[in-house]
């Protein structure tokens, strides 16, 4: 250790100039960012443009310095000075690692933290290890660099070899991806996890940590031996490879405890009394999670509910969130929520007004601690903060002669949105009043018609963009925008640029306008089944208590919970029978007066009729309902035939259900009926027969409807647009569009948005004066 410190002292002296320059650069950059943040309203936007180039230069400088520092005093070779002197290899290597970690990991992160603490408003930049945290990104970047370059530097004979060795180390670091490529086709998912600043990369601090550990260990191990033997060098190469392959890329599914999706996340509240505002009635919130996996990266259970609120000022958005919350079990056990996590959670926004529903979430419990409270009638006490917000907006009309946005930068067809195109561009927007940009709503409004196009900040751009581009409260901003085009014609119009005379940018945001903290008591309710509660389903059903002095509302919620538990898919007839028996036992406790509660539980609307499993639709629920229902009660179900479809036979027997009329065939529909259908179903290719009929009749709207469908489904060979019998052929019957497939596509692209209806010819034609006419 003494010699390590001695070597470190002399290494610091040796590289003092480089380290001094590096420190100045890092601190200067942090100061620059701090200055930008503190003067965000007055600083020339051009200064912000410098932040990214400087970051890039810093990254390059860092790579060069790391290569230089780590390649000195190599382990191999016969002429390094240190090898003929007393210090052991680990002292020399250890001194370098301490120096590198100090100046290239701790210093930048400390500078970043200091800058954000001093200059950035709380909440504007994430400090923690969140999904988009810059702390995490800094960690990732520095760990990746140090780890990889250490790997390379551990086996070099001469500083000249460092580049080659680092290239090999990069290849080694990428080995997990190659393995992933070979083993499974998820390569494209893995690649951004490792290299990009994509979301998943930010969630992989463990990967970065392992890489850093592997690199440092290799460096240290190689240097521990004054002259590493070939065998030892092989270990040095294989060790990180095994480490990197085995640890971070273990399939995510295997790292979690996966349980079958069995029960929904049921949270309910009953009577709530508060001072000041009146929260009248808690409504249950249900969601159907895909799986009850124990997520190691997010081990928190949230408490969600909806509260009906009166007394809120009209037309003000309100935001509600828990500040404190504790759960009390019937046996007196108390579980405190994590207040820090509660306050860090984004709180949902809801439009205000009288008697509004406020979704409340964010009271977070450690998921492991909350498991013992699963399905118990717990009491919740806490403080709810309701924040009121004032809505403000501004309209920005660009200067005459300019364009609101540049021509389209790129097109992208999201996989999950087949009927729209995403347009991405960059908008510079300079003057702006105060407001919460995190909640900003941007719309393009056509001045003539008032038509609005929603513009969204592009998620990916936000994440990969520099910190100054996002989450600013005030100041100059650049918006990566996405415009969701519903129409191919509109997309083409925007492709040429937004004409200033036609469009203006409208920005609106919410301004905080005070809040009130409300003490809340939630009477005992059934806590939903928690992640990790692995009891068999019959036991879970039996655990839901229907006895005691529960209120009507509580009984209703418990019944709802019972039905949702029983409605989970069961595997195997034996298991289904056990669930059925348990539910039979529970529902058997219900008496006739509780029938409305059972009906209400069933009609809560959270269990779609088509999702009923046999246990409910043809099992204990049906039998119990038929036992309790009197013929006269069936009348109340008349308007809920969809919900109680499993009682259809009984309803029909009672004469309450009549057969649906047969739909008309398109040929039998009038022109008006066809057009009504088109207006209501625009963009749905399923009604192709109706469009065919409209085209056959030469109805004027048919062209645009058919074109619209083609825009959506594309020009590819589909059953709607193929050469022989697709919609293209129909268009040619009502316009000058050629019949041949390829010329028809070209013709449509050139003329599709210019055609006008000629009532005399009963055809779509190019307008008079068009040279192509």
């Amino acid at each position, binding site marked *: 250790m003494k010699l390590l410190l001695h070597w470190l002292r002399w290494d610091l002296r040796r590289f003092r100039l480089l380290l001094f320059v590096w420190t100045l650069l890092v601190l200067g950059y942090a100061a620059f960012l701090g200055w930008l943040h503190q003067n965000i309203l007055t600083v020339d936007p051009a200064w912000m443009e410098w932040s990214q180039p400087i970051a890039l230069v810093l990254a390059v400088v860092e790579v060069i310095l790391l290569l230089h520092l780590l390649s000195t005093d190599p382990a191999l070779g*016969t*002429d390094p000075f240190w*090898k*003929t*002197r*007393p210090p052991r290899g680990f002292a020399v290597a250890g001194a370098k690692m301490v120096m590198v970690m100090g100046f290239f990991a701790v210093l930048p992160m400390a500078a970043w933290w200091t800058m954000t603490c001093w200059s950035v408003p709380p909440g504007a930049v994430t400090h923690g290890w969140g999904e988009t945290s810059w702390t995490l990104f800094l960690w990732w970047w520095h760990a990746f660099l140090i780890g990889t370059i250490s790997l390379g530097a551990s086996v070099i004979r001469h500083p000249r070899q460092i580049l080659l060795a680092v290239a090999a180390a990069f290849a080694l670091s990428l080995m997990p991806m190659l393995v992933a490529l070979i083993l499974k086709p998820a390569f494209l998912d893995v690649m951004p996890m490792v290299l990009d600043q994509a979301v998943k990369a930010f969630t992989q601090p463990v990967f970065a940590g392992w890489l850093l550990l592997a690199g440092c260990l290799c460096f240290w191990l190689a240097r521990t031996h004054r002259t590493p033997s070939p065998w030892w060098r092989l270990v040095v190469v294989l060790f990180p490879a095994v480490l990197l392959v085995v640890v971070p890329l273990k399939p995510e599914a295997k790292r979690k405890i996966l349980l079958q999706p069995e029960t929904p996340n049921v949270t309910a509240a009953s009577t709530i009394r508060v001072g000041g505002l009146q929260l009248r009635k808690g409504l249950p919130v249900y969601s159907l999670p895909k799986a009850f996996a124990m997520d190691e990266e997010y081990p928190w259970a949230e408490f969600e509910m909806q509260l009906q609120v009166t007394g809120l000022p009209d037309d003000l958005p309100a935001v509600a969130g828990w500040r404190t919350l504790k759960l009390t079990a019937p046996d007196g056990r108390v579980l405190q929520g994590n207040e820090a996590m509660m306050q860090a959670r984004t709180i949902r926004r809801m439009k205000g007004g009288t008697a509004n529903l406020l979704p409340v979430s964010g009271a977070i419990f450690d998921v492991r601690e909350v498991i013992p409270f699963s399905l118990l009638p717990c009491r919740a006490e806490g403080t709810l903060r309701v924040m009121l917000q004032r809505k403000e907006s501004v309209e920005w009309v660009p200067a005459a002669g300019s364009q609101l946005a540049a021509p389209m930068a790129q097109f992208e067809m999201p996989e999950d949105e087949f009927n729209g195109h995403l347009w991405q561009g960059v908008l510079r927007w300079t003057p702006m009043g105060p407001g919460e940009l995190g909640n900003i709503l941007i719309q393009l409004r056509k001045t003539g018609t008032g038509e609005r196009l929603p513009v969204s900040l592009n998620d990916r751009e936000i994440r990969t963009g520099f910190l100054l581009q996002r989450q600013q409260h005030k100041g100059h901003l650049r918006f990566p925008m996405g415009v969701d085009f519903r129409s191919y014609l509109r997309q083409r119009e925007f492709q040429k640029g937004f004409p200033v005379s036609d469009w203006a940018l409208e920005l609106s945001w919410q301004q905080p306008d005070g809040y009130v903290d409300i003490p809340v008591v939630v009477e005992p309710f059934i806590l939903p089944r928690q992640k990790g509660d692995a009891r068999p389903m019959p036991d879970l059903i039996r655990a839901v208590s229907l006895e005691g002095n529960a209120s009507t509302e509580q009984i209703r919620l418990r019944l709802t919970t019972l039905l949702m538990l029983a409605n989970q898919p069961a595997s195997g007839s034996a298991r289904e029978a056990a669930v059925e028996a348990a539910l039979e036992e529970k529902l058997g406790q219900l008496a006739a007066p509780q029938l409305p509660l059972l009906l209400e539980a069933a009609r809560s609307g959270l269990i779609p009729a088509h999702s009923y499993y046999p246990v409910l639709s043809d099992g204990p629920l049906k039998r119990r309902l038929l036992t309790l229902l009197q013929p006269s009660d069936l009348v109340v179900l008349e308007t809920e035939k969809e919900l109680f479809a499993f009682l259809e036979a009984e309803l029909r027997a009672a004469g309450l259900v009549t057969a649906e009329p047969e739909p008309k065939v398109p040929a039998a529909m009038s022109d008006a009926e066809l057009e009504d259908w088109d207006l209501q179903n625009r963009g749905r290719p399923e009604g192709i027969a109706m469009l065919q009929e409209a085209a056959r009749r030469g109805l004027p709207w048919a062209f645009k409807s058919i074109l619209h469908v083609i825009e959506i489904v594309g020009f590819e060979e589909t059953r709607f647009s193929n050469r022989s019998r697709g919609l293209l052929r129909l268009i040619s019957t009502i316009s000058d569009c050629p019949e041949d497939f390829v010329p028809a596509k070209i013709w449509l692209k050139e003329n599709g948005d210019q055609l006008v209806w000629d009532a005399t010819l009963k055809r779509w034609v190019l307008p008079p004066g068009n040279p192509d006419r």
Partner: protein
Amino acid sequence: MSIQFQSLTKHYRAGDEALSGLTFGIAPGSVFALMGRNGAGKTTTIHLLLDLLLPTRGEARIFGIPSSKLGPEHRQRIGYVSENQRLPDWMRVGEFLRFLKPMYPSWDDVLTARLLKLFALPLHQRLDRLSRGQRMKAAFLGALCYRPDVLILDEPFSGLDSVMRQDLLDALIEFLGEGERTVLLSSHDLGEVERLADTIGVLNYGRLGLRGSIDDLLTGAREVSFLTSHPQVPPGLPENWWNPVASAHGITFMAAGVTEEAALTEAILAHWPGAERLTMHAPGLSRFYIDYLRHTETTAAPASSTAHSL
């Protein structure tokens, strides 16, 4: 033995044998000169001894410790100077000494001051700005000031002018006079070897071809010349008669391992009956060494792995 080589073998590549089964020892307090042609394996031997290279087979030991297991406490007793040694060039001479001092508990400030004065090194000059001779002086300074028990010198004098050599030699001689120091010296400079070493070993194609004390080697060697009416070299001459050369009227050669001159005379007359005006005298180290190397050239490939211990 302070230094011991046991069957030390080093192959850089298959078939490329730099050292082959080197086995010998250096007694404490002796100055051993390792000699040989360029590429004979001298530097490789030293690198293996210092654990700068891994042996293919065998091992080298210092203080009885295998090289690969030498710890800081052992290295604090070893000095090393090489013509190719990389120094921390970014340091000034004074910094270099301050850098080294904490690594060596036996560092002697008085000796340092004396050597600094002897070498006349500028303390504030960076090492990379020093001349070659001054750099070697700095290297010597960094190797002598802690009074190492074993000093390993790899071509320390090559390329230096006479004054520099003399300064370094003076320092070395003073160092040797202080106590029982073991020195392994690799050098081509026969004058310095003769002044410093008491034992030499000659490496030849990776094998130790000749080893012994300088006095013994030279005492048993004779430069022989005589006239004869048949100046031809007959076959079947003794192996220790090196480089027999026939001129117009006579023969010359170097006889090694001579115990009695009378016996040598008889042997010569047996091969050349008419030999006359026979002269024989003891050679200098330089002549002896060169004749040995020429002799090994004529016998081509390495004759045997056993050293000529004469």
